[in-house]
């Protein structure tokens, strides 16, 4: 089954991939600033948002990348610029290893684990938050819905998008299988990434700790960007920095795009 996507804008194709427990609408505040320069494709990864889960108890970044490659096939697109946040960054690296990425921008990307696993403390934190939100969901959802309708939301989020994100984090069927697979599988094909690669981390990221930002897992030509004071949600907190980084990275591979 092909993952669901939204497509808007004109220019070279740019694929945005959300993180664990996220959904395509995670990118709502960034998309309008990208559609002038790019043909923007926002995907819901299998098991999140509107996309059906992959039928497996353990799902890795590579499995997700293979599914996304199937979506690109359906769109008749050979390769794209890929921006991935967190889990989506790990998927972006795998798409690169499959030869389907023109450039890769990983925003607090997964998969660069120091060892064979993500740090246990991070994994437990993700698992715990998911369990708490999914258990409290029957009681909490009406209140969350009210809040998303009437409370002021940060990061340019609309109520719809915030609710979609809540629903994905608390109820996505893909959450557990993907958490199991992704946290236990490092990216090992760095030598296959011959395209421009940028990796961005916030200095206050508590989800992907400094030990899980192993630079050896990406090729030597990778550009590493550190954003002071930013947390794991760099795409929300540093929108202008991210837009600029996307233009710089894709511009190094694409002529005619120089903003």
């Amino acid at each position, binding site marked *: 089954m092909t993952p669901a996507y939204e497509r808007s804008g004109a220019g070279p194709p740019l694929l945005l991939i959300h993180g664990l427990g996220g959904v395509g609408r995670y990118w709502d505040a960034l998309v309008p600033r990208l559609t002038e320069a790019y043909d923007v494709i926002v995907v819901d990864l299998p098991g999140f948002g509107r996309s059906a889960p992959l039928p497996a108890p353990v799902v890795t970044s*590579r*499995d997700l*990348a*293979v599914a996304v*490659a*199937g979506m690109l*096939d359906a769109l008749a697109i*050979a*390769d794209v610029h890929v921006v991935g946040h967190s889990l989506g960054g790990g998927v972006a690296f795998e798409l690169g290893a*499959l*030869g*389907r990425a023109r450039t890769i921008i990983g925003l607090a990307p997964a998969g660069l684990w120091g060892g064979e696993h993500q740090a246990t403390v991070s994994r437990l934190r993700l698992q715990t938050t998911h369990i708490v939100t999914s258990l409290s969901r029957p009681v909490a959802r009406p209140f969350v819905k009210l809040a998303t309708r009437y409370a002021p939301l940060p990061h340019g989020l609309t109520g719809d998008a915030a609710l979609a994100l809540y629903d994905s984090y608390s109820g996505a069927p893909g959450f557990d299988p993907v958490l199991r697979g992704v946290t236990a599988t490092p990216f090992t094909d760095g*030598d*296959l990434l011959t395209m421009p690669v940028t990796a961005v981390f916030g200095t206050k990221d508590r989800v992907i700790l400094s030990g899980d930002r192993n630079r050896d897992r990406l090729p030597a030509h990778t550009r590493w960007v550190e954003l002071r004071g930013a947390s794991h949600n760099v795409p929300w907190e540093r929108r202008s920095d991210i837009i600029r980084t996307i233009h710089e990275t894709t511009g190094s591979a694409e002529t005619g795009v120089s903003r």
Partner: protein
Amino acid sequence: MKLAHDRFGEGAPLLLVHGIGSHRKVWRLVLDRLAAERDVIAIDLPGFGDSAPLPGDTVTPAQLAAAVAAFLDDIGLDRVDVAGNSLGGWVGFELAAAGRATSVTGLGAAGLYTDSPSRSGVRRLVASRRLARAARPALPRLLRSRAVRTRSFRDQCVHAADLPYAIALEAASAYGACPGFESVLRGSLSGPFSRGAEITVPVTAAYGDDDRIIPRSARIRSMLPAHTTWLTFADCGHVPMWDDPDLVASTILKTGTDG
């Protein structure tokens, strides 16, 4: 029955049958040696290479063998020597049991399992199939890298690093493109080869000492007749034609003349 095939040389007819996801070009390295002595017919099984698939969700090796027998009828051959790799070896056994073979050489032959076939072997096959499909538009570029060729073909042969670009590209493209993979895999998992007792012609069953697809537990000797010659190819993998063409050619030619 129409099957895509190549035919070279003169002598007693010799039918070559490839494995799952493969195609008739897999014999490229041994063709010259065989065609110097024999009328060699290398076929694409239904659903692979350039041959149209058989209808149905599940296609068993016996059904494939029936299609090959119909093809032999069409080209006016009653009985032929058969050499087959992997699934092709199994098809060869079925042809022999049906009285259409004068001898059979199985190279890394499938089908000789008891209750359940090799899980790890099947997992490797399915994973390679997914990756070959997902990377298909990028294969010409990706496979230029020796590192990629080595990694992609290490499950198939020992000397993956030395596999020529052209052979790697045509093999990976065929693997990703064939419409018959899933239905034939299902058919191969639905039950083992069961007509060993009906084979009266000479049989050779050879396995590479580093065959990662068909483990020892799936090479049950009692499933082939007692007169079978069992061989181990040193320094060879699941596709020994790529590892040691001389040894494979001499083994095939020997099966046809002994006994």
